[in-house]
């Protein structure tokens, strides 16, 4: 099992433990790569010959373990973020006593290294760091026939998260299976180019989710170009949690730059306005869309909203919409 790329302190020890079947009955997995964690869990299950069982909390099964029934089956119990177990020394001792041939795997979204639990169970904790791009590409290409460039695009869109890549690959495979018979004769080349087509189609129509990047600058550009798509971009900005005050500040600075460039009569715009070459270049893209008076109005609206938010007179959640309605 090749999991090269993880640099957890215990990763190689865990692999060795799995290979020699000398696993600790309690393991703690941390990190974002839940898909890789699942691979390890399946492997452990195979080696131990035990079924896995997802539970809400370790405390919920301790009673069963203590009862030691003859017909009791052994499992690999998997719990996520069981804070009660982490903070309860008595429960930990009880589990240790009654674990028998069962196994516990605790999945932690975040682990605080200052906690007593971390210090006590440090040797049982395996950190699954994000896979390196080269390794991730290998995994993806094992799952689906995609070229290097398509893989790079997929990894970028999935933010280099293997779990997300698997989900999107599943979508591509299903779309491929549903459309394979509908392809043209000249595309019957063994499926590679059709896979690409499926990937591009799903990317284009949004079935494969592409996270918005730097939506705030695109949003402000759309306002300064009087484009109606600014409302969609505003929703994207909200979705990624952009603060209203930040949006207002970016809009204000850009509108001001456009006003300065638009009203500059001198040939040396940079010297006249104090703006950098980059700012002037950006501002020039939007000149002519608004008259100077309208740009002044945008600046005043932004200032009014900024002060209103800080004094509590304007609700932050409505401020940007108020600006958009008055500007466009």
């Amino acid at each position, binding site marked *: 099992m090749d999991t090269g790329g993880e640099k957890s302190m215990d990763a190689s020890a865990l692999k060795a433990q799995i290979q020699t079947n000398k696993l600790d009955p309690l393991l703690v997995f941390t990190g974002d790569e839940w898909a890789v964690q699942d691979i390890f869990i399946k492997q452990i299950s195979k080696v131990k010959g035990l079924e896995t069982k997802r539970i809400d909390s370790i405390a919920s099964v301790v009673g069963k373990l203590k009862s030691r029934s003859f017909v009791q089956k052994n499992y690999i119990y998997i719990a996520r973020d069981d804070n009660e177990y982490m903070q309860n020394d008595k429960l930990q001792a009880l589990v240790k006593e009654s674990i028998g041939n069962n196994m516990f795997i605790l999945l932690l979204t975040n682990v605080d290294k200052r906690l007593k639990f971390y210090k006590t169970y440090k040797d049982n904790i395996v950190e699954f760091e994000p896979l390196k791009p080269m390794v991730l590409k290998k995994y993806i290409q094992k799952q689906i026939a995609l070229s290097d460039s398509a893989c790079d695009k997929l990894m970028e869109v999935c933010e280099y998260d293997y779990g997300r890549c698997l989900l999107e690959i599943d979508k591509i495979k299903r779309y491929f299976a549903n459309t394979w018979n509908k392809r043209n004769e000249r595309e019957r080349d063994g499926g590679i180019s059709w896979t690409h087509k499926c990937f591009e189609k799903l990317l284009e129509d949004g079935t494969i989710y592409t996270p918005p990047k730097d939506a705030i600058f695109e949003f402000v550009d759309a306002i300064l170009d009087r484009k109606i798509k600014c409302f969609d971009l505003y929703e994207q900005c909200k979705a990624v949690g952009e603060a209203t005050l930040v949006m207002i500040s970016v809009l204000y600075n850009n509108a001001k730059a456009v006003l300065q460039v638009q009203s500059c009569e001198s040939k040396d715009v940079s010297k006249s306005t*104090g703006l950098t070459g980059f700012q002037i270049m950006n501002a020039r893209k939007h000149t002519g869309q608004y008259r100077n008076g309208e740009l*002044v109005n945008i600046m005043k609206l932004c200032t009014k909203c900024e*002060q209103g938010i*800080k004094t509590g007179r304007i609700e932050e959640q409505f401020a940007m919409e108020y600006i958009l309605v008055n500007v466009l």
Partner: protein
Amino acid sequence: MIGQVNLLKRMQNLVDNNNFPRFCILVGDKGSGKKTLAHHVHLQCFKDTVFTNAGTSVEAIRQVIDNSYRVTIPTIYLLADADNMSVQAKNALLKVTEEPPNNAYFIMTLQDINNTLDTIKSRATIFYMEQYTPKEILEYTEITYKENNDIYGDLCATPGDVDLLHRVGAEDFYMYVEKVADNIATVNGANVFKIVDKIALKDELDKYDLKMFWKVFISVCAKRDDWQLITVTSSAIRKLGIKGINKQMLFDEWILEVRKVWMQAH
């Protein structure tokens, strides 16, 4: 200590009558001499006491409270510039304001009395810094900087203003503001926003203080009988008090308003 005659007299009376409040708040503008007054009270009124500059973070407050219940010598704790004290720190202070320890006196300084909890206000004796007369300002300038220039008396309201003005050069500063007043309405729209290059929006020491700039601008406008611009500038100064205000945007707004008023008048 220059000025604050009546306030000092009042405080001395309280000390003489053994009635000085265990917890008091000194309220005044930045640079009005609140910390200086607190030190003066310690040295002149409260002899044989220990004076401690306490911090305003939660940890500092908790340490101060802990110490204050154990001191055997009368101790004055100064909580300076408490305007930005966190809510947790203010809440931690409530305990000591309710049951002040026997040997401790707390003096908190604020620029705005509304920057503290109502519960703290209700338990404190509040002293407001008095206005300085032009004569007192000139006296401060002469003692501190050995300068005898009427411009300080005209433009400065507090010793802090004198320090600011002296640092940037009073004459040069006044000339700069006059130049701005002459040209702000007529200069090209592309250039006008460059006025801010010389204004300290983030406490830069080599630039002009924004509030001081506007005060001097008002003084220049007053000499020219330009009352509309005084109104616009006074409104801008008031907005400076809004916590977290974006000074860049406020200054630009002021520029646009000044130009608008000028255009309407001409």
